[in-house]
């Protein structure tokens, strides 16, 4: 069975677009131009009271010493309906949070890399069903690591051949079998942890080769497994485009979109004061790793976690997505590509397994770079079709086409991020009666 041939791609896109239209028809007002006299539910608008509760929540996080400061932006119908920067970007410098404060985006890099990859797909230079080994030959020899108990009861790792090659789509939806080494304790994850992929200042090519030599945690296309897939995708973009990942993204996406502050590092030493820092005792992103210093140059441009940027930049990226691939008259992706990226690619019909580390959560599937709401979040009126992602240092965003709105929260707090994201998102939706 050959999944994801071009015609299939088109069919999915059509289905996704149709689903969105149905949703829109059901709720009205999703694009801000709903006809008057509609019999459907009125569009959801933000109330001043609701927004002041959002604001008070963030302020309380700061005054209670949980975070140094934060910025929340909400845009609806293409315009800012709420923007607030509160607190400081660094308790040491006491400089205020501001729209040009630089944050470590970590996994919020993934949607950017995914969009860049889909631009190459639209160019016809890359196909979702291409084997990764067509671009990174080392992946031709990659094996799956299967844990086996030997006679003495000791667990060992047996290497099995792949049942099918890893595809570009597997990289985009995290079903490649490539994992992360910093959570879980399986033997494969331990090998990932030991491989220490980003030490030794390797290039993207070298990182990808190292990953290719590691066993996969499972057969491609069998399980959603968060990992270095998007880093490998970044290398594929380099091979296909003949440019570094940053060069390609800069030329095709970042510069035209005006995302001039989004990059893989902050090279200019005078910009140090612009970087947001977590509370001094809140720098650990895992038991072994602390938030990185974006001023330390490194060769690898991690498409999965390496970017830094501002809320202003990310707002332009997110608005382009919400607009169906355009911003200020320039097209970046076709609407059907956005529809494809924001439809579920790991639903029950795919047989793709989910375990305790299925980060999109129970009510969501996963598209090509985003979690996508596929069923109603319990005890909420949150709409379907909402897509989103977040980063380990605390940043998160969500895009809600039904209400034609997006929200971006910028903060640096590895330890408080989960709690704050849920509470804040709940308050934001409550502020528009959901």
């Amino acid at each position: 069975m050959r999944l994801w041939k071009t015609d299939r791609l088109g069919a999915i896109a059509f289905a996704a677009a149709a689903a969105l239209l149905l949703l829109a028809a059901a709720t009205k007002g999703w694009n801000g131009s709903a006809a008057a006299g509609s019999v459907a539910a009125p569009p959801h608008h933000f109330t001043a009271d609701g927004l002041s509760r959002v604001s008070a929540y963030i302020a309380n996080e700061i005054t209670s010493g949980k975070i140094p400061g934060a910025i929340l932006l909400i845009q609806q119908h293409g315009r800012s309906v709420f923007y607030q920067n509160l607190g400081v970007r660094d308790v040491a410098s006491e400089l205020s949070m501001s729209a040009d404060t630089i944050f470590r985006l970590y996994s919020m890099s993934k949607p950017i890399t995914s969009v860049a990859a889909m631009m190459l797909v639209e160019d016809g230079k890359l196909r979702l069903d291409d084997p990764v080994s067509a671009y990174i030959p080392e992946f031709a020899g990659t094996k799956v690591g299967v844990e086996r108990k030997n006679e003495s009861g000791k667990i060992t790792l047996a290497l099995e051949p792949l049942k099918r090659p890893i595809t570009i789509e597997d990289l985009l939806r995290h079903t490649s079998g490539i994992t992360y080494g910093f959570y879980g304790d399986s033997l494969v994850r331990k090998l990932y942890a030991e491989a220490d992929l980003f030490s030794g200042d390797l290039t993207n090519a070298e990182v990808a080769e190292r990953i290719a030599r590691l066993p996969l945690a499972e057969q491609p296309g069998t399980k959603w497994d968060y990992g270095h897939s998007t880093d490998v995708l970044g290398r594929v973009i380099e091979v296909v485009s003949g440019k570094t990942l940053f060069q390609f993204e800069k030329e095709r996406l970042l510069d035209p979109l005006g995302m001039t502050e989004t990059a893989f590092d902050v090279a200019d030493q005078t910009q140090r004061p612009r970087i947001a820092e977590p509370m001094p005792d809140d720098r650990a992103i895992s038991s072994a790793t602390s938030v990185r210093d974006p001023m330390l140059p490194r060769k690898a441009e991690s498409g999965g976690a390496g970017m830094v940027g501002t809320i202003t930049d990310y707002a332009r990226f997110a608005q382009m997505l919400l607009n169906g691939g355009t911003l200020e008259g320039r097209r970046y992706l076709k609407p059907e590509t956005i529809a494809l990226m924001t439809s579920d690619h790991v639903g029950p019909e795919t047989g793709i397994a989910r375990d305790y580390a299925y980060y999109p959560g129970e009510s969501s599937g996963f598209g090509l770079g985003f979690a996508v709401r596929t069923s109603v979040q319990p005890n909420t009126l949150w709409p379907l079709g909402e897509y989103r992602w977040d980063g380990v240092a605390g940043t998160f965003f969500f895009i809600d086409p039904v209400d034609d709105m997006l929200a971006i929260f910028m903060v640096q707090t590895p330890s408080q991020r989960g709690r704050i994201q849920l509470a804040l998102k709940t308050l934001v939706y409550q502020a528009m009666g959901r």
Partner: protein
Amino acid sequence: MTSFQGVRALACGAFLVAAALPARAEGTFDIPAGAHFNQQKLARVGDYLRDQVAQRKIPGAILLIQQHGKPVYHESFGVRDVETNEPITDDTIFRLFSMTKPITSVVAMMLIDEGKFSLDDPVSKYLPSFSNVKVGIETPGENGKKTLELVSPNRPPTIYDLMTQTSGMTYGFYGDNLVRKAYAAANIYDGDFDNAEFAERIARLPLQNQPGALWQYGHSTDILGRIMEIVSGKSLLAIEREKLLDPLGMNDTRFYVTDPEKKKLIAKPMPNDSDFRVGFTSYADVPMKWESGGGGMVSTMHDLARFAQMMLDGGKFDGKQYLTAKAFEELTTDHVGPGSGVARDFFYFPGDGFGFGLGFGVRTDPGNAKPPPPGSLGELKWDGASGCYFVIDRKQDMFFVLLEQTPSERQKIQPAVKKLIYEAMEN
């Protein structure tokens, strides 16, 4: 007694003018075009300033009057520093304080004219923190104590509001209402902040009034300076140098004096008159990151004469057009007059007979005083907390620039000098 002589000299001067020109009921207001200076009468300006120095009211001053492109009076008085007794020359460096605002405004207008930003743009387009700004309304409480109620602005403050000083942003160092107290209490001048940080600090404070409702002297021009940085991608000094200071040859007009040789050229106020009452202490020779477009510049007579001549000539100097006709007109047309909806209160600093353009006071009418204060209709002017002062009179093709450093004497000296200058004009 020198002080007695000074008073008598002034009294005599006033008597002489009254006796010589009994027919002119309007005194020195709006003298017909084509007037020239009577050098003998002009000498009284020198007498007056020399007397101020002799009385030790000021260490010194420098005055240039230029008409038809040529100096008609150019003299310095006293010393630049009573400790060194060095003289004041054209390259003596003075702190301008608010006289910085017209310079910032001219460069802003150049950038607006280039389409870098627009007068109608909301401030929050460039500084999103201002999207949440509130207006502070004082309401009397039960016990007679005033409380501050925060309401949303009727419309967002715009670039135009910043340039006309009607944004609602105020200064914390004068007046006593609750918003001004909030400014004073916010410690907005703490530490070595830059323009970006300063804008964030101002964004957290309430506006004193609804945007466009009241002429309100404040940090508007500092916020304008930050926006100029954002739209140009350069520091405020860098963009001002590129657009105006370098081409116009204003090479000593800067935010700080860093060259050790130039530091010797800084004019100092009298040791007992060094509080400029601007809410914070700063020094021309101690550079900070802050480049205050509202009050941070230093300059010289050499530089300001070029700036004033450029404005006198409608935005042109040495064959180079700095401001288009449209931009010049925007800058120098009254925007806060009757029908504009802009109210004036006790702190309307442009003063009697003046409206306000985009960074300049503009003479619009005789005013309420009898006889009216001197000057011509259409006159452009501004000054600063140290007493630096310029008047640009396009009707008479004349400007004068007075440079001094005296926070406490300036309000007496500036009008006295202006009056004597206009009294020296004859048709």
